[in-house]
C-alpha cells in the first residue's frame, strides 16, 4: 500500500501512529487486530520500520554488526540474529560485510535499512519516504525490493510524496491531504479516465506542494 501526499499531509504521522511512536488524539490504531498502545511496543512486535529514508543505523559499525544488534533488539537470539544478518546481507546485495556503514552509498544504506526492518521477519513493514535520498537508478532498485517484500508475503506500507513512484509499485494507493484521505483504491482506479480522480488528485497534490 502506498501513502501519497504533499509535504505536511500526514504520511509520516500515520506511519508513526501505526508503529506506536505517536499517540492518536482520537480514535485508535489496530495492528493485526491488536490495539497499538503508547506504553509498550508489544503490538508492534511484528513490525519492521524504516524511518527518515536511510537513517537509523550506527555508522561506525559494519552492516552485519548493525543487523545483528537490531535483530537481537527485535527478539532474535545472537546466533539466529547473526545467521539472519548474513542471509539478508546476501539477498540485499550487500557483500561488503566488514565495511563500516559510514562508507556506504545512499543506496546501500537504504538496502541495509530495509534488511534491518526485516530481521525478525515481520508481518508488516512500514517505510517512510524510503527513496527520499536516492538517485533514480537506486530508487528504481528500491521499488523492486518493495515489490519483492510484498511477493514474499510481507504487508508493506510505503509513504512517498511522488505519485508516479507509488502508482508504479503499489497495489493500493491512499492519498492524504491535510491529514484526510482523499483517495483510497487501486492504481488502476486512479488511472481510469472516467473516474476523474487522478486528474483531480494530481492537481490537488501539485497545488499543495507549491504552497
Amino acid at each position: 500500500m502506498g501513502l501519497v501526499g504533499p509535504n505536511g499531509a500526514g504520511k509520516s504521522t500515520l506511519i508513526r501512529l501505526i508503529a506506536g511512536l505517536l499517540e492518536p488524539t482520537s480514535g485508535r490504531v489496530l495492528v493485526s487486530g491488536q490495539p497499538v498502545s503508547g506504553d509498550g511496543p508489544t503490538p508492534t512486535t511484528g513490525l519492521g520500520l524504516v524511518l527518515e529514508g536511510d537513517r537509523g543505523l550506527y555508522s561506525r559499525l559494519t552492516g552485519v554488526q548493525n543487523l545483528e544488534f537490531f535483530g537481537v533488539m527485535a527478539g532474535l537470539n545472537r546466533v539466529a540474529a547473526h545467521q539472519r544478518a548474513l542471509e539478508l546481507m546476501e539477498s540485499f546485495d550487500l557483500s561488503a560485510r566488514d565495511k563500516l556503514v559510514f562508507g556506504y552509498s545512499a543506496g546501500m544504506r537504504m538496502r541495509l535499512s530495509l534488511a534491518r526492518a526485516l530481521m525478525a521477519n515481520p508481518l508488516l513493514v512500514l517505510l517512510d519516504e524510503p527513496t527520499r535520498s536516492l538517485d533514480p537508478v537506486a530508487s528504481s532498485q528500491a521499488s523492486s525490493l518493495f515489490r519483492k517484500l510484498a511477493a514474499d508475503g510481507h504487508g508493506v506500507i510505503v509513504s512517498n510524496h511522488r505519485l508516479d513512484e507509488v502508482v508504479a509499485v503499489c497495489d493500493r494507493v491512499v492519498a492524504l491531504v491535510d491529514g484526510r484521505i482523499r483517495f483510497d483504491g487501486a492504481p488502476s482506479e486512479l488511472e481510469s479516465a472516467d473516474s476523474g480522480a487522478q486528474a483531480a488528485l494530481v492537481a490537488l497534490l501539485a497545488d499543495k506542494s507549491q504552497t
Partner: protein
Amino acid sequence: MSSRASIRDQVAAITRRDARLELSYHFQLTMRYVSTVFVVAVFFFIGKLVGDAEPLEQFQGGYFAFALIGLVVMGLAAIGLREVSRTFTGEASAGTLEILLASPTPLSLILAGSLVIPFGLGLIDTSIYLLIGRTLGGVVYTLPGPLLAAPILVLTIGTFVAVGILATAFLVLTRRGEPFTILALQATNLLAGTLYPVEVLPEPLQIAAHLVPAFYGLRALREVLLSGAGLESIWDEALILLAFNVVLLPLSMWALRRALRLARTTGTLASS
C-alpha cells in the same frame, strides 16, 4: 534451542555495540585515561600542601586519599547523571531512537544495557584512582574494606542514575536536560563532602548535606576504605542509601514513561 532473545542476549548486544563504538574512538579513549592520571596528580600535590589537616586525622593517607574517594564517587556520579540522557540524544541524532522504541525490547532494558560500558570504563578510572592512592598515597585497602565498599558504591551510583533518568524525562519534555544534571552534580560537590569534610561547612549547609545521597555514600566509603571500619559502622548509611534507591528509581522510571507518553502525544519524541 529457542531462537528468541533472552534479557541476557539483549543486554549483551547493547554492551557489544557500545564497546565497538567506544573502541572506534580509540584516541579519545586513550586521552581519557591520560587525563585521569593528570587529575590524580593535581590532587596529589594539593595533598602535599594540605597534609593531614585536623578533620582528616581519622583517615589514612591524608588529604590525597580522602580526595581520591571523592573523585571516584564524582566520576561515577557524572556517568550515572549524564549517560541516560546521552543515550537518548545520541540515539535520536543517529535516527535509531524510534527504531529502538518501536522494538519489543523494554525501555528499561535499553537504558540499563546502555550503562554497562560507561560504568565499565568508570570502574577502570576507579581502579586507576585506587591504585595510585596505594602507590603514591600509601593507602592500604585491607579486607573487608573493598568488599563493603562495592555495594555502597552501587547504592550511591543508583541514586545518581535515578536523578539522571529524571533529567532525561525533563529532556524528553523540554529538549534540555542539562540544568537538572548540572544542579545535582554541583550540589553534590558543594554539600556531600566530595573534596573536603562536611565539618568545614557552615552549620545550615551541614544540615542540608543530609539531603544529598552521596553524603552517605562518601561517608561510608571513607569509613571502610580509609578507617578500616566494618559493616556495623556503615549500616545506617547503607539503609539510607537503599531507601533513596527504592524511592528514586521507580519514581524516575515512572516520570520517564510519563514524559515519553506525552512526547508521543505531542509528536516531539524524535527530537528528544
